[in-house]
């Protein structure tokens, strides 16, 4: 990644903020004083939408989460709350002619993002299709199991969150628990999501996954380097999805899937930086986006290199 922007705290003025500050404090404050032992539960219950939190409130929540995770997993966690990078529009480019369908990206993602093993959740679905048909979702399956890939006559297409500029999922969410952040990442506040799954119905890419039971990530080798809007351990009954590895990319690192890809099919970078690799690909290669007719305007480009 070529961008050299440093994270800056941006606190947007919000008309409702002053009201919520008072209301938010007044509501939990009364019972909190009398029930110190139950503070965790009430604090969590009355916690506001991440977008409405002050830096101080974010710090408190992050600290509380770090303690909770340490207690549960016996390891020291860092939960970042870094805001969107300024002057950055993250985008992805995937070279379909290189992809061999090995699913290394899937497992790199599982490890990095603490995805549940049971029930199994994959943020990336690699679809196998007939080579001669080209991209045809009606003749695609994610459930192939060959001894060797690529299989004869087959082509592969990994699909994950496309981080749409005109995202149907954020539009339909009744509580604004998911939104397009300023650096172009569609994020979810797991503590605000009510679990109605309207976003799953609205997403044309099958990118969103629901925690149908309490997620069980691998305990040994759990990634303790987390972000509030990213790979921190989730709870049951909420929706999750690819975040372009927000915990890594906001610190200037590549997403885990980019690093895991053995054939270099995956490219990632800043669209606003003309020197970045994605900008180069957009300029010099013919790219296409999935389901263009839906006007979702993804920042996930496919190309044949």
């Amino acid at each position, binding site marked *: 990644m070529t961008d050299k922007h440093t994270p800056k705290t941006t606190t947007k003025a919000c008309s409702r903020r002053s009201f919520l500050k008072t209301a938010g404090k007044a509501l939990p404050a009364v019972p909190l004083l009398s029930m110190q032992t139950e503070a965790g539960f009430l604090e969590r219950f009355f916690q506001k939408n991440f977008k409405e939190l002050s830096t101080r409130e974010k710090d408190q929540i992050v600290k509380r989460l770090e303690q909770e995770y340490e207690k549960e997993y016996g390891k020291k966690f860092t939960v970042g709350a870094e805001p969107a990078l300024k002057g950055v529009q993250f985008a992805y480019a995937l070279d379909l002619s290189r992809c061999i369908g090995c699913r290394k990206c899937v497992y790199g993602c599982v490890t990095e993002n603490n995805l549940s093993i049971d029930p199994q959740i994959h943020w990336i679905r690699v679809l196998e299709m007939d080579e001669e048909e080209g991209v045809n979702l009606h*003749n695609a399956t994610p459930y192939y199991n060959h001894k060797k890939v690529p299989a004869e006559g087959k082509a592969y297409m990994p699909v994950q969150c496309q981080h749409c500029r005109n995202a149907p999922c954020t539009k*339909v969410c009744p*509580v604004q628990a998911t939104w397009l952040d300023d650096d172009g990442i569609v994020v979810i506040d797991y503590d605000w999501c009510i679990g109605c799954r309207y976003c799953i119905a609205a997403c044309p890419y099958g990118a969103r996954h629901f925690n149908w039971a309490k997620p069980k990530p691998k305990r040994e080798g759990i990634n303790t380097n987390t972000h509030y809007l990213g790979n921190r351990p989730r709870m049951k009954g909420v929706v999750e999805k690819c975040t372009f590895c927000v915990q890594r990319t906001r610190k200037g690192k590549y997403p885990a899937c980019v690093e895991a890809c053995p054939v270099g099919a995956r490219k990632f970078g800043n669209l606003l930086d003309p020197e970045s690799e994605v900008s180069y690909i957009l300029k010099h290669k013919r790219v296409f986006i999935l389901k263009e007719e839906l006007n979702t305007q993804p920042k996930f480009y496919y190309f044949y290199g």
Partner: protein
Amino acid sequence: MYFIEFIKGSVKQVTTGNKYYWAWVVFLCLLIVIGTIAYINQMVSGLLVTSMRDQVPWGMYIGNFTFLVGVAAAAVVLVIPAYIYNWGPIKEIVIFGELLAISAIIMCIGFVVVDVGHPERVWHMLPLLGTMNFPSSLLCWDVVVLNMYFLLNFSIATYLLYKAFMREDYNHKLVTPLVLFSIPMAVSIHTVTAFLYNGLAARPFWNASILAPRFLASAFCSGPAIMIILFQVLRKTTKFKIKDEAIWKVAELMAYAMGFNLFLLIAEVFKEFYSDTHHLVHTKFMLFGYHGHHNIVMFTWFAIFASVAAFIIFVIPSTRKNFLTLNVGCILIYFGVYIEKGVGLIIPGLTPDVLGEIYEYTPSNTEIFVSMGIFSLGFLIFTLMMKVAVPITRGEFHSSRVSVSQE
């Protein structure tokens, strides 16, 4: 204060009854208990105990919700002729339509609550306190209109019953505008619910402009079907008088609505098959099955057969006025629309999923038990309300103030 007497008297009404009444109440309570146990299990284990998965994220709960919004909206079928054209025979029974709407909305809310992963967080949807995504999210619109419709029906029904209890004439200047307002409200709850699906470009089966008109047309059949059966039960079990001509008039309206519903179905099927695009897979899945998945086909054809048969029964005057064929028609319509607006709408819309995968959904036992529990809760609420409303409208249950002077 006579309102306290009204409340006390109502409590007395619902706590006294014959053995059939108590058997019915106990039976419903038993189903509610079973449903509650199933729901607690679902809360503890997560929604994994349902058959819903990422590929089919909505199922029986949301199907029931959609069907019941239609039932609630259909109260308007009785309200329109009764208040606008001032038809004598229907006016006396409008109040029961409103009570049915109230119970249906309570069931709707119940089905949404059991469907979400974190019901304790629904306050996030409230304006000011939470971050309501209004006007962007249609789910917020639905919450707004359903609550308004509930409040409207609840206040009108309570006011009318209280006035009848007091043997006073109700204030026409107050009631008439409210009743007139409830007509566009009834249309809007069903339209907004249709738009909830309609607006999703990712699901071509729902992304058709015909959806909202079809919702209304089918609702105008299913709601009155329940009412017609109910009126006959009331005539048999209580001394309540409902004229035959009132029932036949409702049945006639249903025939027109069902005819229109079938016409819209044909329009939809024609467009899908003639244009023969990728979007056809959902309709094919629904009608004939797809890649060896046939579970839903039987239900689809039953619904179509039931709707056509009911249409014929209701459109011919002699079968419409024969109570045997009329009741068969009502039952056919009820189950036909229950499938059409329930699993028949939700499942083909989500199968195959957006990446072409076919996950064949059939409701799990948890979903069936929880649904039975919510339906029983709705029936129980309706039974209790009717237990109060019937004697009031018959003049048997009234305020002590009038007992001396008028009897």
